[in-house]
């Protein structure tokens, strides 16, 4: 046994002895490209502080690129910056800025192309069309990057972190703002998005399609053009996220379209025009969420079925639930609604009469949006009262049979 250990150690040292560290300074043109041509697998390229005007740096060897005090690699608005085509590359501590803009290729600051186990950590990405672009890559890590841009319109801009046809990614603690979509996933499975902050992107904070079995937790999506959009995916889990201040006439904290078998738990929806918008979703569990001061806490279209809404808090929302039809195949149970005015005679902390979360006025405005101008007028108050006594247009199947009397402590 000791011999084996010694052998292993020997192999390790022998291997380590062959690697070298190459220091790059900004004194010559194409300093980084020259260094990369010179190095071999396992080397470390250490880039000193300075301004490097280089584009399309191809990393085709298994190396580590480290920046000292954030050296600046500037693309001067031409081409891409770093393209990684080899597994197990590490890129850390760089400031990458000013990629080009093109309608033919998606210009990215860091592009990972058909690779495995690459990690991109602690970088600052400023004013790029796309920040980190993962393309058919697996087991990659994107950690603690600051990704910033000031995109003006959807057409001429790209996404902060763009992942396509990848699996097993980990995106953690990144800070993304001012892109088209903060994080964009398409055909990405088995991945985790943890503790990221995505703010002030012109379209979505997070946008994913056809991406199954992903977990999103403890992220903040604040003040994005249209919030978060989740489409055509299965087995998605969202825990402890914060959705705040996504305001606008087509703005949702989360838009769910054709989602199935997913979980949305312990999230906070604060001051959004619409908290959750659902269309064609099935078998989603919405548990332990808090909806505070939203225009509509939820819009559940009647194309949704077998979703479960339990143990959520609905506080100070203008409308709790809106829907577009009378059919309702979902279950609302054991939620706390601050508008509930029933009673609890047997003192079991559950209201004795059901709560109907769809108000008559929300049905009216669903049909005729302009009627919103009469919101909170005396007339609509009277109409709501009359409807409560004699329900005629409110969907009577959408109700919470066991509304809680006290709000839940969720955080």
């Amino acid at each position, binding site marked *: 046994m000791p011999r084996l250990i010694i052998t292993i150690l020997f192999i390790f040292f022998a291997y380590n002895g062959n690697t070298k560290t190459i220091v790059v300074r900004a004194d010559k043109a194409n300093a980084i490209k020259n260094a990369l041509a010179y190095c071999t697998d396992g080397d470390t390229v250490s880039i000193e502080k300075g301004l490097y005007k280089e584009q399309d740096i191809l990393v085709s060897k298994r190396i580590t690129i480290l920046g000292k005090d954030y050296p600046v690699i500037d693309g001067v608005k031409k081409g891409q910056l770093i393209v990684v085509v080899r597994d197990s590359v590490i890129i850390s501590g760089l400031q990458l800025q000013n990629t080009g803009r093109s309608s033919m290729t998606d210009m990215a600051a860091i592009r990972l192309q058909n690779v495995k186990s690459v990690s991109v950590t602690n970088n600052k990405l400023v004013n790029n069309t796309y920040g980190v672009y993962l393309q058919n890559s697996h087991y990659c890590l994107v950690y603690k990057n600051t990704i910033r841009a000031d995109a003006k319109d959807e057409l001429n801009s790209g996404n902060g972190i763009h992942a396509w046809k990848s699996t097993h990614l980990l995106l953690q603690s990144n800070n993304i703002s001012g892109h088209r979509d903060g994080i964009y996933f398409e055909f990405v499975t088995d991945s985790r998005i943890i503790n990221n902050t995505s703010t002030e992107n012109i379209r979505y904070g997070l946008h994913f399609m056809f991406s199954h079995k992903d977990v999103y937790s403890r992220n903040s999506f604040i003040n994005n053009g249209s919030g978060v959009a989740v489409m055509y995916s299965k087995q998605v889990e969202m825990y402890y996220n914060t959705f705040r201040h996504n*305001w*606008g*006439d087509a*703005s949702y904290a989360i838009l769910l379209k054709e989602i199935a078998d997913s979980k949305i738990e312990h999230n906070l929806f604060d*001051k*959004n*025009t*619409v908290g959750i918008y659902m269309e064609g979703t099935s078998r989603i569990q919405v548990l332990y969420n808090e909806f505070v*001061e*939203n*225009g*509509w806490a939820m819009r559940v279209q009647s194309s949704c079925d077998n979703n479960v809404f339990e143990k959520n808090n609905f506080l*100070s929302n*203008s*409308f709790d639930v809106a829907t577009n039809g009378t059919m309702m195949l979902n279950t609302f149970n054991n939620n706390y609604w601050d508008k509930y005015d029933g009673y609890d005679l047997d003192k079991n902390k559950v209201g004795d009469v059901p709560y109907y979360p769809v108000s008559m006025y929300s049905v009216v*405005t669903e*049909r*005729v*949006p*302009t*009627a*919103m*101008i*009469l*919101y*909170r*007028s*005396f*007339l*609509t*108050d009277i109409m709501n009262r009359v409807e409560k006594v004699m329900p005629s247009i409110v969907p009577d199947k959408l109700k919470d049979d066991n509304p809680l009397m006290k709000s839940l402590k969720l955080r």
Partner: protein
Amino acid sequence: MKTIMKYVVADLIRNKVIVVYAIILAVLSFSVLSIDENPAKGLLSLLNVTLLFVPLISILFATIYYFNSIEFIELLLAQPVRRNKVLLAEYAGLTISLSLAYLLGVGLPVMIISPNLAAITLLMSGFLLTLIFTAIALLIFVLFKDKTKGIGAAIAAAMFFTLLFDGLLLIFIYSFNEYPIDKAVLGITAFNPVDLARILMLLQLDVAVLMGYSGALFKKFLGTGTGSVYVVICMLFWVLLPLMLSVRVFRKKDL
């Protein structure tokens, strides 16, 4: 003019109705605000009170008061004073006492419990509503000779603005649903001071809803400072127009 105003205010305070009005408002505001933990909700209830009772009470009380002081006005007009001065002094005295009652009754509790921009907006809209509905009462007073008819007209006017107008607007919106009526609807609301006051207040409280689905126009226009300024200007017009009309009618009126 000042002297007449002083007499009117003194008379109204001696009348005690104004004092009772202020006290009722104060008790109501205190209870509404302290029941609910969320002050925004309390403000909303107070908004409902303001939108419903302030117009009704202002217009009814003012009409009755004007008709009751007709002898006083006739006596004054026997002196060398100008007609419009007497009329405006009556109006000013009445609005001062009514709005003081409102500002004290609602303002004090609100400012103690939740002093913020929404509270100031509430007070502002209540104040403007008082100005508007006492002006409308003045117009009713100069238009009608008979007191009973005048009070009837006052009730009808209050009902029209608080209830009927919105009903008609809703019918309008429903029937022209297929057309782009957003702008028209915005324009129509300017014809109802109660709606204007409500919108002014909603811009402070429920912006999320107004910004939502109901069309980009509401958001673009009402969501900004310009929207609030527009609403306030419309309301000021609602004070000035009835006043000018009643002065004009009163100048030629056969007393």
